[in-house]
């Protein structure tokens, strides 16, 4: 078995425009996903919007600079993640395909193990 992180990228603006009913439907879809894949899921969270993000990186002078906003500005922003256990990439992809996403997609990344 190996661990994979499923990163959920979605159109934030669309999510914010969404009415209450469709927001509830999305939440419900995540609950169903969690129930169906409970054995494989070892963690996961939804993130607040990138408006609440703060980035810290070194500026030209090598000093740590704190700025408002996500590390990279994209239309589809990281909005949540699941940590899963799967036998191989095919199994991880099969689970990732079930993650409810409205307009964006997900990225599957193997967790690095240090021995």
């Amino acid at each position, binding site marked *: 078995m190996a661990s994979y992180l499923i990163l959920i990228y979605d159109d934030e603006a669309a999510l914010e425009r969404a009415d209450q009913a469709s927001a509830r439907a999305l939440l419900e879809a995540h609950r169903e996903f969690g129930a169906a894949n409970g054995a494989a899921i070892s963690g996961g969270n939804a993130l607040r919007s990138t408006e609440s993000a703060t980035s810290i990186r070194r500026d030209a002078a090598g000093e740590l600079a704190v700025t408002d906003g996500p590390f990279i500005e994209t239309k589809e922003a990281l909005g949540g993640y699941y940590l899963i256990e799967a*036998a*191989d*990439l*095919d199994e991880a*992809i099969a689970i990732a395909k079930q993650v409810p996403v409205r307009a964006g997609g997900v990225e*599957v990344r*193997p967790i*690095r193990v240090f021995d």
Partner: protein
Amino acid sequence: MADGSPLAAAIADAHRREWAFVLAATVRVTRDLDLAEECVQDAYARALEHWGRSGIPASPGAWLTTVARRRALDLHRRSARLARSLPLLLDDPYEPDEEPVHEVADDRLRLIFTCCHPALAPSAQVALTLRLVCGLSTSEVARAFLVSETTMAARITRAKKKIAAARIPYRVPSAKELPARTDAVLSVVHLVFTTGHTAPAGERLVRQDLVERALDLARMLRSLLAADREVAGLLALILLTDARRATRVSAEGELLLLAEQDRSRWDGEAIAEGRELVREALRRRPPGRFALTAAIAAVHAEAASFEETAWREIVALYDLLGEVWPSPVVALNRAAAIGFADGPAAGLRELDALAAEPRLATYRYLGAARADFLRRLGRSAEARAAYQEALLLTENAVERAFLADRLEALERSAGSRG
């Protein structure tokens, strides 16, 4: 193999026919692609020595497999090397002491599906397939795709690392996934073929080595996935297209269009085999993209002359193809076929409707097809501009010479009139 001795020929033959078989069987022992490759290379080196002394074995593939696997087991026992390499995941556990068994046909499929996994970049899928399934060296793969050996080595290493790190399984996909995954494999083989059939750049029109590899791969898939109609379709397409090989370039090395080719020199045997496969491939409903493309190639092969080509049938087949495989290139070919069925004015109308398609903006055959229709309509100035545009996008020397010739002929006639 520089010398022409029977031994060298036997080794070369075993390399071409058995490489995938031997490597695929060895990967199951090593669970590591690099190590398996080393063991297989070692087995071929030993064959050179051993077969010279004791004669060529009745079954070279089995001999090579046994030697490569034994080498892998030796290293397995010394296991220091294995401990530091990342294991490939296997769906069924392999016992290291097990004797080689010959259920290995499946192992070649495992190898192919691993190389053509959609989680790998398409260029990496092609490179890995040529390297691991066909046994080409990195420098041969690099030359085939006109990139430096360093670039290709990095591409192959990156792909192997991803297979290990992301745990791309060494497995034949489940029945549910099989059609989509098979399509990915066929796309790789088709790309190898088209790259060989009309080299994207360089002095020669055809890269025969790549065409042969594509044909080998298609035949291998045909033997391993006999029930798949699209596999039959791709093999048919390669056979029917490559049947024209001897006639595509004149004795002077000039490009000859379909209309100018000596059809009596087309390969009748390949055409017969291709037509039989097309019939089989078309039995799937709806027919797939390779079956339909092969059917179009079959219509060309069946026409006694260019003038007698059943253009209506070809247009109808392109209509069907556009439904199962909507692509600007299909639309372009359909437009060209309409030009032959209904005359250049009709063809030009269809082509101009495609002019806004961004994916065709840098496609050299759009300009070339427009130029030909304009020339036949007597619109010389526009034809010249279209040839010039096509020339800017064409990097194959033989194709460039053809376009330059057409352009020069138009300029000469313009000059003589003026």
